């Protein structure tokens, strides 16, 4: 395992913690960007420059899609704030557990990922539990597995339970990146075509928050007016 891979894995896990626990959605999206770009680099051997560029551009495009609705929401919130009303984003408060608890959950999941990678490296189909020598030697798969499992587990709660469209989408993006990372840990680096398909899937996943929040906002404006008249 190279030190660079370990640093990227730590950054990806930290990005996941930020993305689900930050109160400000813009900060959460920066966390998602770190996860998405880092996940493109968490492959051993590294993908070709073209494929890597496509993965990174797709990751940033996905974040940009969500950023547009979050930025519009903040502008609406500021406008409503001046008029003494509350914007819809006021209800989005991030993880109820707080970042320290989420970080501990991520660390626990990362150890599980290291265990999976060790089992893959040292076991066989008929073996349950890795051999001690396999556990002692950390491989590239260990870093990828640790980051992937942490990201996957951290994404579950917002994807399943958060009513906010953006936070739910952040959870889904973490699940996708985690699943792809786990797939690399188990079955090795993906082909170029598979990477392209994953890039498309990440953008499609981000479009969930973009489309639903885009519909929510006009509906929310109408609903915010207590006397039923549209906001002028």
């Amino acid at each position, binding site marked *: 395992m190279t030190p660079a891979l370990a640093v990227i894995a730590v950054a990806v896990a930290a990005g996941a913690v930020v993305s689900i626990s930050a109160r400000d959605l813009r900060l959460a999206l920066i966390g998602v960007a770190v996860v998405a770009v880092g996940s493109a680099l968490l492959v051993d051997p590294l993908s070709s420059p073209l494929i890597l560029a496509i993965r990174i551009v797709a990751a940033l495009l996905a974040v940009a899609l969500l950023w547009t609705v979050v930025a519009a929401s903040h502008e609406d919130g500021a406008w409503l704030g001046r008029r003494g009303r509350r914007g819809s984003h006021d209800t989005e408060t991030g993880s109820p557990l707080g970042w320290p608890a989420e970080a501990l959950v991520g660390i626990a999941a990362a150890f599980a990922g290291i265990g999976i990678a060790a089992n893959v490296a040292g076991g066989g189909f008929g073996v349950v539990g890795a051999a001690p020598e396999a556990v002692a030697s950390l491989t590239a798969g260990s870093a990828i597995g640790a980051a992937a499992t942490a990201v996957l587990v951290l994404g579950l709660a917002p994807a399943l339970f958060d009513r906010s469209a953006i936070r739910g989408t952040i959870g889904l993006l973490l699940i996708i990146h985690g699943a792809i990372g786990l797939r690399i840990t188990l079955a090795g680096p993906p082909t170029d075509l598979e990477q392209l398909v994953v890039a498309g899937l990440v953008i499609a*996943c981000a479009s*969930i928050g973009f489309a639903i929040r885009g519909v*929510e906002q006009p509906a929310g404006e109408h609903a915010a007016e207590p006397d039923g008249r549209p906001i002028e």
Partner: protein
Amino acid sequence: MTVLLIALVAIGAGLSVLIVRRASPIAAQLIGLGATVVVAVLAIGIDPGDTTQVGGMAITSSAVLRLVATVWSGSLLLLALLELTIGGRAAIAGPALVGLGAVVLGLGIPDPGAAFAAFAAGSIPAVLVPGASAWIGRQDDAERLITLRRGASAVIAATAVAIVVVAWGSSPVGPLGSGEPLTVDDPDRAIALGLALLAVAGAVVVRAGLIPAHLWAARFMEGVSSLAVPAALSWPTMAFALVALGWGQVAIGSPTASSWLEHGIIALVAVTSIAFGGLAAILHEDIEHVLGYSIVQDAGIALLAFASLRPEATEAARDWLIASAAVKTALAGWVAATRWTFGAHRLPDLRGWGRQSPALAVALVTILFAAVGLPGMAAFDARASLAFEAVPAPLGWLVLLAAFSSVVYYVRLLAVGFRKEEGGVAHAPSPVPRWVGARPTGWSSRSVVLVARDVPALVDANRAPIVATIAIGLAAIGFVVAAAGVGPG
């Protein structure tokens, strides 16, 4: 090469439609129609066995892929025409084309994990766009936005589970990567294989909206145009289940599927969906609900294949899944046509629809024969084979009986259609073709121009018969696929 070309044309055109549909719905619909025609022509020309290397992976065409591409693109062409005729919001062709391209690409890819990712990427627009178009600006639909998110989340969740399970299968600790035989003598292996089977079958349950994961699918179908349902549910689910079954047969095998616990759980979920899906379709008065629950019932029948995984079961499931997708596409077209023609979607408000529009009645009778089938038809035999592969006689007969409950809700729809016309049905547009606005002219250089000028008026005056004719066309496609199946090879 043709498969790659179809995927590129369909996805490119679908994205173009999504981009221009707000600015110009008519332009979007025309792009969608044009691209669908091109894809249909290309699909007919697919050569089974053709292989193209792209990005380190071989994209291979097959008879199944050709049938899916041909039938789905042909049906989509008719659905897009139907939407254009009834004045829809150009919400169907764009996402459906993206989904079609992704399904074709995924079925051509040998790696099931990449195929699942392609299906998910292609079907998310098909869930989001029609839902967002139907519900935008409506104040009473905050809960329905949650439904949209649930639908998209179900797609992502099923995909993530399937990707990880398939990767496990190819890893050194999995059955394919280890190269060790598929046996269940070793208890550790039996547990691992059983969990993998349950996980992949669970992914199919979530993706298809089967009971108990049916909530999102049921709510989704309440709110969107029925024309959106095939692209969001029927075809991507068909492709997902086909690939999952193919992987399950190779990686897990029938000994695990025959173990009592795995077999029992999968058969129980499948039979529950068959029985309650059929019952709900019989009891509901909303024709969109009948469509939705009939899809749940059909997917339940396909799930029975996971309780067997024998080659006979997977072959039957292949025939059943493709026929079911084609027939439900036809039913979705019929629902949209009926709702537009009579301005109603509840059975009490549709009394006499069949008397008023015999062409729509012909379409539904054709759908009835395609869905229920006759002995000798591929779908009919596939359903019986699936029931008895998963649940041996005499209980298998009960499962088959539950699967045939579709007769009841189709006959109920028809019976309502032949009662005395009431309300809106009696005042519905005439289904008889009319020549209003067309002026008889002699053959001269100007007559062509005059006739061309009359076409829009003619189309406008004949929307009802055009809509009914399209419904018959969709039903005919469904019948042919249900009768012929994939065929040998």
